[in-house]
């Protein structure tokens, strides 16, 4: 308890201290950032009047997040305590702050003020060192910033941004950006430039569109040209920002605002990004801007793509597809990456994926998605629409209002369709989205690092590149898709969508399905399939192998049936502790008594019931036997040490079986059991399991009943199944046991018949048993020296033998049953005990009794 309290207090402290409720370990600056922002607002009002009154606070926050923490946090962020979410947020914020700073920097008159706000006294970190920090921090902090190469480049986005803001500001009214579309103003409220209120990109676009058409047209063309890989307007573009820099109105080179767009579009993210195109992509895109338009470097989009593909890692239960926030990050990266990579490979060295800023993705133009080829390409690469994209508008078209409209198939434009499944970003709230974006951006980035340009990606990229000019091909090509050349692109389009489900996801599904097939006892659950596979394997591996056996795996999921849910002491009432595996015991449905079957013909039913009961009893015996069988199979699956328990169990079961056959009650039932074929089979299978003593007792009991059995069995002859096991059981008996057995036989004989042997000899089973007795006796006599043998026993035995021979003599040969297996020693035994004359009389009969017809080899020689 104390500990708990202690913990609470310790965790409470920072929260209290912060007042902002930010979890995790954040730097002071970051933690205080929101507060600062509030201050900023205040200042802004004072400084700039009310026009900025309707800044969207949220957007500013996001903006601040975008800044990235690099400027403030010179140490690698501590990842140990948070899930990365906080980190993402942090880097987000720091990036925003960075952006803010850079922008403010540009405005010299406000620089001092800005510094106060931004850096907490730190100079606006815009130095190479800072950039280094950026670099350093980014991999760990998931800072998606690329490395800004030059300050000047950094300025450009800012300028462009400011330009945009002016534009927006001029035209707009406060449109609270709905969650997603955050058009982030490049700076926080303090920025001296009349930053327009945050508006959705849509609005800005609209304004720009309304303003003039021509520039936009140019833009589109420019984009197209650039898409085709020409170097055209790059120079223009590079120039324009500077031009813009000093023309805070919208006017300037008409190209600029639109010009901005193409550039950003080219770079992929710029215009798209909610915040000034320059911002996160700031360093990089700018850099790009300087360079000839990029045809998206092949590597980039794929890498952009691939992470998303890879991303859906499912943890155990959740669907792998359910990944939020992924795409936005993805979105960001790809265009960015693309742009960055071409012009500045060294810069983007490790960074290309970095270059994804989470924000740009957010800024997706609702329309014009299908319009520009560029957009198409970018869009399709962008995997998932930034959250809150309007239904189709994932692709960050950014302010590319007038792209040549793409033909829209009923099925939607390819870019739309290209967006991979994990595009549930659309539903996220802005904040969560941004955060998730970050989070996933990070993941993506990592993925990008690890899986750079796999085949899929390249396919996609290929399609990406080639598709922008063509209408959605798949529909037209549908019939011929797989066969023509023409669907070169059709195929590509199709291939592009192939592999939406990664191998990991597939494995995950298969794993679930296989899990359902797990079984503890293959023999029980799927007997036929088990034996089928075993047999197949046996055939394959050659017939020399002994029949393989499926081991019953010893996965003791020992969830004891008698589970009583945990009970809590000292609690009021009984707390519910039901789980999926141990639900509450609501109704007691124990096996009720079977309904009595009353019928008019009671006798019949009674007999039937009795018979059924008998069968049930035999079943019980079988169950014991099968358990023994199972244990024998289990034994091999278990290591040596733990086999003992199994052996003991087996022994126990065998004892139970013994009981089954030898207890008093069962003796009464004995006849009945043995009258049923199954009962006999049971006994036959059980006898080999017994120890010698047990077997002997069983035999005694059997011999007790021998007469009766024989009488009953006269018609059926079903006892033969017992012959072999009985004889086997007799093997190893000593003379004493044999004598005892014989005595039993004698004792049971009904007084009226002359010789008990008559009946016994008539029946195949009993005759065989008798001969078996003699066989064993011979064995005994052979093995033991006469000295050791008890004289009395010997005498008794000789008596028996004589009786046997006499009885045999009396019988006609034809009446004697034929032997079923060989008892070689019987005859020899007779010779031992009997005089030659008697032997001669009976030898033929004995032979008949002891030698099955099949064996031609006759072991006896005429005595």
């Amino acid at each position, binding site marked *: 308890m104390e500990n708990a309290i202690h913990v609470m207090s310790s965790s409470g402290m920072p929260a209290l201290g912060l007042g902002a409720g930010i979890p995790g370990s954040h730097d002071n600056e970051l933690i205080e950032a929101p507060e600062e922002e509030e201050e900023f607002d205040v200042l802004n009002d004072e400084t700039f009047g009310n026009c900025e009154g309707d800044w969207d606070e949220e957007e500013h926050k996001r903006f601040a997040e975008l800044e990235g923490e690099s400027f403030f946090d010179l140490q690698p962020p501590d990842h140990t305590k948070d899930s990365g979410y906080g980190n993402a947020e942090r880097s987000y914020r720091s990036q925003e702050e960075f952006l803010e700073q850079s922008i403010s920097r540009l405005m010299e008159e406000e620089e001092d003020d800005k510094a106060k706000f931004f850096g907490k006294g730190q100079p606006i970190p815009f130095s190479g060192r800072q950039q280094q920090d950026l670099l350093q921090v980014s991999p760990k902090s998931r800072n998606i910033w690329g490395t800004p190469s030059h300050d000047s480049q950094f300025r450009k986005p800012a300028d462009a941004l400011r330009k945009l803001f002016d534009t927006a500001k001029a035209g707009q009214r406060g449109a609270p950006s709905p969650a997603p579309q955050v058009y982030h103003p490049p700076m926080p409220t303090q920025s001296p430039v009349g930053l327009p209120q945050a508006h959705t990109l849509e609005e800005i676009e609209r304004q720009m569109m309304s303003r003039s058409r021509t520039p936009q047209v140019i833009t589109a063309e420019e984009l197209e040209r650039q898409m085709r890989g020409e170097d055209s307007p790059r120079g223009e573009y590079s120039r324009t920002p500077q031009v813009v820099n000093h023309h805070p109105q919208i006017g300037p080179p008409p190209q600029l605002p639109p010009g901005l767009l193409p550039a950003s579009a080219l770079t992929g993210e710029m215009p798209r990004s909610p915040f000034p195109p320059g911002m996160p992509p700031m360093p990089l895109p700018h850099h790009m801007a300087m360079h000839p338009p990029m045809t998206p470097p092949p590597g980039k989009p794929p890498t952009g793509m691939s992470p998303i593909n890879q991303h859906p890692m499912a943890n155990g239960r959740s*669907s792998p597809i359910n990944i939020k926030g992924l795409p936005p990050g993805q979105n960001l990266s790809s265009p960015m990456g693309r742009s960055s990579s071409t012009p500045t490979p060294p810069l983007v060295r490790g960074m290309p994926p970095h270059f994804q800023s989470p924000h740009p993705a957010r800024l997706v133009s609702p329309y014009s998605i299908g319009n520009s080829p560029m957009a198409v390409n970018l869009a399709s690469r962008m995997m998932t629409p930034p959250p809150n994209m309007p239904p189709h508008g994932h692709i960050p078209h950014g302010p590319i209002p007038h792209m040549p409209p793409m033909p829209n198939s009923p099925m939607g434009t390819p870019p739309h369709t290209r967006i991979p*499944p994990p595009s549930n970003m659309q539903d996220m709230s802005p904040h969560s989205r941004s955060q998730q974006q970050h989070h996933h951006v990070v993941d993506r980035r990592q993925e990008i690092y690890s899986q750079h340009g796999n085949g899929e990606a390249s396919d996609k990229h290929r399609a990406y590149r080639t598709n922008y000019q063509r209408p959605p091909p798949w529909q037209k090509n549908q019939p011929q898709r797989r066969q023509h050349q023409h669907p070169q692109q059709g195929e590509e389009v199709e291939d592009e969508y192939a592999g939406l*489900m990664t191998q990991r996801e597939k494995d995950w599904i*298969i794993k679930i399905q*296989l899990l359902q*097939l797990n079984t503890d006892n293959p023999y029980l659950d799927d007997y036929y399939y088990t034996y089928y596979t075993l047999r197949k394997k046996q055939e394959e591996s050659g017939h020399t192998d002994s029949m393989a056996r499926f081991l019953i795996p010893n996965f003791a999921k020992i969830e004891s049936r008698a589970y009583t849910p945990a009970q809590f002491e000292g609690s009021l009432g009984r707390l519910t502790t039901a789980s999926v595996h141990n639900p509450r015991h609501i109704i007691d449905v124990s096996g009720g008594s079977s309904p009595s079957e009353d019928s008019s013909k009671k006798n019949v039913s009674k007999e039937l019931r009795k018979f059924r009961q008998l069968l049930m009893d035999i079943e019980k015996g079988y169950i014991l036997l099968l358990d023994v069988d199972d244990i024998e199979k289990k034994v091999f699956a278990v290591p040596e040490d733990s086999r003992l328990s199994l052996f003991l169990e087996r022994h126990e079961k065998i004892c139970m079986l013994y009981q089954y056959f030898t207890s008093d009650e069962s003796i009464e039932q004995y006849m009945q059991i043995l009258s049923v074929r199954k009962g006999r089979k049971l006994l036959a299978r059980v006898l080999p399991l017994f120890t010698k003593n047990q077997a002997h007792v069983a035999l005694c009991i059997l011999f007790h009943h021998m007469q009766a059995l024989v009488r009953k069995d006269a018609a059926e002859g079903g006892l033969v199944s017992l012959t072999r096991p009985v004889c086997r059981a007799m093997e190893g008996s000593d003379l004493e046991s044999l004598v005892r057995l014989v005595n039993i036989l004698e004792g049971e004989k009904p007084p009226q018949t002359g010789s008990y042997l008559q009946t016994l000899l008539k029946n195949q089973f009993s005759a065989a048993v008798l001969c078996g007795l003699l066989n064993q006796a011979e064995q005994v006599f052979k093995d033991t020296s006469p000295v050791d043998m008890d004289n009395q026993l010997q005498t008794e035995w000789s008596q028996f033998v004589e009786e046997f021979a006499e009885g045999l003599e009396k019988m006609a040969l034809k009446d004697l049953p034929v032997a079923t297996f060989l008892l070689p020693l019987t005859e020899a035994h007779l010779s031992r005990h009997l005089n030659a004359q008697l032997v001669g009389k009976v030898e033929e009969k004995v032979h008949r009794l002891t030698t099955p017809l099949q064996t031609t080899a006759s072991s006896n020689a005429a005595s």
Partner: protein
Amino acid sequence: MSGYLPGTASLVEEIDKKLLVVLRDGRTLIGYLRSIDQFANLVLHRTIERIHVGKKYGDIPRGIFIVRGENVVLLGEVDTENEKNLPLEEVSIDVILDMQREMQIAKEQEEERKRKALQERGMHFTEQPEDFM
């Protein structure tokens, strides 16, 4: 799943193939299977809904479909080579919808007739709507 466990089947092998899916409400969808999950929910891409009436059929392009697994009756791979050589005649969507409506009306009339006949004979029969076919 045949690699993992012989004698089993899984939808994983059908991914990215063109499938024909019959739903419990009688609809027939043809599309590329892009993704599945453990409940056999399907994500169909470039889906068309094909309506058959007699020997004629009509396609309605539908885009992306996500089908809940329990609503699938069966599905099978489409033979892309032979799917052009159908013995059926394709008509436009409007035509086929009209035909379908007519068929539906005819069926209802028939049902109504039967119901009346049964009612005359004193039998009241209400059929629970099950899966439509």
